[in-house]
């Protein structure tokens, strides 16, 4: 436990000074956004054992809505983020309500199919700009007080949100509600026989995960200034699964580590290998599944005999 606290403090300090170590703030922010996305996804996969194949739908939809609210409707930054999150929450509620009735592969297929519907809506709808995407999304300011135009200001804002989300997820998992989720993960029929309304718990977890994924998408749109089809595409859904599994699903730090590895590789390999990046990352995924199934953090914890939480 003490080691864990020391690790979190260490990571926190590192994150605070990172922009002054010559690391590129926009890259760090992108990293945090995807780490947040992976943590949200992990809430579903790691702690409830529901594998969604369509999480990009919530991430991307929220990015588009936030972008649209800022550029077309002229909303402020915080309101636009909340607007984006509200839409992804709604989307999560609708898709989740349909999907949680099924399990395993059928659950995955329903989330995949409905996410593809969202993708095609984004491709065809006028407000998203189709193939061109939404461009020039201004970052605005925090309640009119602190301008987020500066990369460092924006970085600390994103960092604060990420830490809040991270702690929030920890809180959820350790709460009685989280214990029920873990019970469902371990043995669903048993949870039913104990009298828990399992579908309701699953739906709540689904909506929470979708909303947090949406929050990550909103922030990404503001950080980079655009929302495009890549955000909402199937590839993005696959990437978040990859990040979570690579880092270690069902661990708190796993998705964060996984997102770090994947985004960093993409960043540096894109210069060298172009579109081969996806092949290389695919190969890494295969190695991960064959050699260390619990993911990086999962394996470390197992080796040194620590419980998964």
């Amino acid at each position, binding site marked *: 436990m*003490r*080691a*864990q606290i*020391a*690790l979190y403090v*260490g*990571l926190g300090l*590192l994150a605070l000074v990172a922009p002054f170590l*010559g*690391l*590129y703030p*926009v*890259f760090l922010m*992108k990293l945090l956004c995807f780490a947040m996305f992976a943590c949200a996804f992990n809430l579903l996969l790691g702690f409830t054992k529901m594998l969604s194949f369509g999480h990009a739908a919530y991430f991307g939809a929220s990015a588009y809505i936030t972008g649209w609210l800022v550029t077309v409707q002229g909303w402020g930054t915080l309101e636009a983020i909340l607007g984006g999150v509200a839409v992804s929450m709604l989307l999560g509620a609708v898709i989740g309500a349909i999907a949680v009735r099924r399990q395993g592969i059928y659950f995955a297929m329903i989330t995949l199919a409905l996410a593809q519907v969202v993708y095609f809506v984004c491709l065809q709808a006028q407000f998203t700009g*189709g*193939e*061109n*995407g939404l*461009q*020039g999304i201004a970052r605005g300011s925090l309640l009119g007080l602190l301008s987020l135009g500066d*990369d460092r200001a924006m970085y600390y804002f994103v960092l604060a949100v990420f830490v809040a989300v991270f702690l929030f997820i920890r809180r959820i998992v350790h709460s009685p509600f989280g214990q029920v989720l873990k019970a469902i993960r371990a043995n669903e029929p048993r949870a039913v026989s104990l009298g828990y309304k399992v579908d309701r718990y699953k739906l709540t977890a689904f909506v929470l995960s979708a909303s947090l994924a949406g929050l990550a998408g909103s922030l990404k749109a503001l950080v*980079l*200034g*655009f929302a*495009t089809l*890549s*955000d909402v595409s199937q590839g993005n859904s696959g990437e978040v699964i990859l990040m979570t599994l690579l880092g270690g699903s069902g661990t708190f730090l796993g998705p964060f*580590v996984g997102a*770090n*590895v994947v985004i*960093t590789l993409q960043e*540096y390999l*894109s*210069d060298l290998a*172009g*579109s081969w990046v996806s092949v290389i990352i695919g190969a890494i995924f295969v190695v991960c599944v064959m050699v260390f199934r619990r993911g*990086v*953090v999962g394996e*470390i914890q197992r*080796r*040194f005999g*620590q419980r998964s939480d």
Partner: protein
Amino acid sequence: MTRNSKFLALGALLGLYASSPAGAAADQVVIGDIDDMSGVYADVLGQAGVDVINMAISDFGGTVLGKKITVLSVDHQNKPDIGASKFREWADQNGLTMVLGGSNTGVSIAMSKVAAAKKVPFIAIGAGGASLTGVDCTPYTVHYAYDTTALGNGTASAIIKEGGKTWFFITADYAFGTQLQDAATKVVLANGGKVLGAVRAPLGTTDYSSFLLQAQASGAQVLGLANAGTDFSNSLKAANEFGITKTMKPAALLAFLTDIHAATLQTAQGLYLTTGFYWDLNDQTRAFAKRFFAKVNRMPTMDQAAFYSATIQYLNAVKAVGSTDSDKVMAQLKKTKINDFFAKDGYIREDGLMVHSMYVMKVKTPAESKYPWDYYKVVKVMTGEEADGTQPDPSCPMVKK
């Protein structure tokens, strides 16, 4: 042990970042090339685009104002997000002084927003969309090689004069395709023609059968192909295989030399197309083409020639003003006439469009072609004003009304 292992993990994470690029290089002139290196437009510019920039730099002497000239390049994979974020990163991290924009209008529009925000000159070459100097114009954008307006004015009017009055479009489904279709439609309507229908095909489509059947069912005389790169050669080949070219006349609204090469003369013969450059126009173009051929074993496309020309223009401007300051360089670029193998008396208009002569070409028959890459004959030379109008685009906010 546990604590050690955790710090080990932390250390490993840190190690990942150790290779981060650090700091801007103020003593360098950095030219970025953001282009499709592996997708449907890779042949139009692609890797050869990087070669041609390097060729221009070594012809210039490798340095300007005593500063080394370096080139950065990236494959944007036709994704606006990759293009824009690389541009931003280079501007923030690598001391970027100018960007040459490769193919894809959607990506270029995204990049132009970054150019405006970061105040870095952006010379769009591979992209055709006229909105780059219209609604999407910025003080730092130059649209150098061609635009959709010129393509419409060239090809569409040539075909209408031959009697092709009714049109059906197969359009690449993004900014470039729709703008090209709009430009051609304007010309068709202005000359008393009619557009009977249009269908949008996603970028990178390989199966055109359903689109072609719709085109055939429309009964139009002309099949307008508002696409480019391998999309163009695939759709043209498919139209041939379906026998549609017997009843409809295909119109290449944008075709590059490499596309004609890929489609073969057998398929492409008799096509009209509009281009800003052809390697076999005169001794100057042939001299450049010969050097280019020696390097990449192909003849240069319009865009590759424009890459060379634009690099030299930019370096000359830097030399003339004695700095890489974006505003000074842009002012210098806008007041300099462009006279080289690529353009005669070209000039950069208030809205950022480089106005220069355009050529309406007809693709030769296999019998007419006397030597390798002998593909076009000139039908008409349009002055820059004929191609793009005499006035700057009023939808550009910078244009004084």
